[in-house]
């Protein structure tokens, strides 16, 4: 994993306000997003975060390995 499980949990939690507020941002630019569309966007976003976090670090050569929290 690129980050510790604790950091992953926090990253997912912190993404939730952004997902929730994505409807507000969309409404500002005239896009009417339904709750289900927001949930779908959230699912994709969180899945991407998890995928990024669990992807083996060796796929990114040269990246320094951080100390686990």
């Amino acid at each position, binding site marked *: 994993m690129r980050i510790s499980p*604790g950091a992953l949990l926090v990253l997912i939690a912190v993404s939730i*306000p952004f997902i929730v507020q994505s409807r*507000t941002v969309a*409404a500002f630019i005239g896009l009417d*997003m339904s709750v289900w569309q927001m949930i779908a966007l959230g699912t994709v976003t969180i899945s991407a975060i998890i995928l990024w976090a669990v992807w083996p670090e060796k796929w990114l050569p040269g990246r320094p390995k*951080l100390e686990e*929290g």
Partner: protein
Amino acid sequence: MTTYIERFPAEARVIRSTFFTAFIALGIGALFGLLQVLHRTDVHRLVDSADYYHILTIHGVLLALTFTIFFLAGVFTWGLTTSLDRGVVDVRFTWAWYGLMVGGTALAAIPMFGGLIDGIDMSAGVLFTFYAPLQAHPLFYLGLALFIIGTWLAGADWIWTYLAWRRENPDERIPLPTFMVLTTTLFWYLSSLGVAIAVVVFLLPWSLGLLEQVNPLLTRTLFWYFGHPVVYFWLMPTYMLWYVLLPKVAGGKLFSDPLARVVFVLFLLLSTPTGIHHQYLDPGIAEGFKFIAMTNTMFLLLPSLLTAFTVVASVEHGARQRGGTGYLGWLGALPWRDPVFTGMALAGLMFAAAGFSGMVNAGMNINYLVHNTFWIVGHFHLTVGTAVALTFMAVTYWLLPQITGKPIWSRSVGLAQVVTWFVGMTLMSNAMHRGGLSGVPRRTAEPQYENFDFTPAFGTMAELDAGVVIGGSLLFLSAVLFLGNVFVSLTGGKDLTSIPENAYAEALSGAEDGPLILDNLKLWLVIAVLLVVLTYALPIGAIIDRGGLLGPGGSPYPLVVESGRAISIGLGEVVA
């Protein structure tokens, strides 16, 4: 390595008692919070809507006053004794103020809960904002008065202990945590004076029948004289923990001790002359005085922004000490598995959002859009409900072992708990803010009306209600996880070897780098008093002059109307 309980066993007993009292209040308050969200959204109404206001009062008083102030009293006692490296002068006095606060709370609780029981002819359904014309049973006001006096004695205890240390160390700079305790105490004496006068001089005699009537605008103004500053009585200990403990658990040092002192001096000066911004819609207070309150409130953003800079810089220093690199890569090196760090970090993040919604509240023009709406409830659940409450819960995972000698039962449950609180508050406060923008009122048992639907800017009211219910339920779950973790930890055995040393963060730039005048608390107190006199003398004088010291109240018309009429008459004469 020495833990707090080994160094200060007598003080540790008092702090344990303040924490346990706070946790009992948290448990009851959280339960009543859940009942509220279920009731308002019409998911389940356990009580009659007339009794909703008793539940709201219990929720507000137990969480906003009892939980917060008992906890911060314990935190301040810990910070003072740890940083001075000496115990309190006389622990019997410490027990005395604790006992007075408990006694006051118990007295106030009798009518608060009595209102829910048919056989008891007492009531205190006056909400946390307990000004006239709503009237509570005299026991409620008497209890509040004793509670406030208890906090004053606690402050006297801290000052007494500091003065004893000063005699032993005449040439030392005031240690930072003690400096923060002292500035907060002085600010609290100044700001709680308003509610003390409101309760003792007006509301208590009125409830006893000794006064026939009171001036509602005067009691409102005296309440808000205290009602906004009390936010800083919760926030200043929270800031203290962000300054002295967060950098330590992040693995680093405080960025700047003098900058932290500047922040607390600014809070002492600016926190009190701001309360009128809660009264922008009150007739009887001239617009000019409201403008002054708005200006003072906006100035309060400065210490908060200084804090954001200093705390983030300190945390970044800690991350780099742990091997973090890059512009943002250092974030990954922070101890995210530690509920103490994560809880405080998430609380700080939420507080940034609270600052933005607070600017809306503070602005005279846009405040009219959200005044007395659900927006305000969303705002203060981000400030006291997250920045303060989540920090206090997170810090418990560090302080509880220090004052009991018992390790936390499960740090993983602790991590899940702080994250659950963050997610729950995200959903609930977002829905509250959006509901407020649609005009949904606060302090209302049934915000559903016949032949009328609120129209959110997007989405539906049902979605907002769902956000409130799901968020509120997650918050209750988080409170249960927290209290369960604390309870199971207390049933475990002592293990002092697994508990870190009792200490707080050192500073990269220490007190010696700041000017001595920062420690001149008498000077700052005098300036703070002058600012309060300048802000409040004229409006309070005008309120008494127009409505009388004992009522019947202010003019039903805003003063600006009278001015406008004068101008129109003048113009009429000119035209004629």
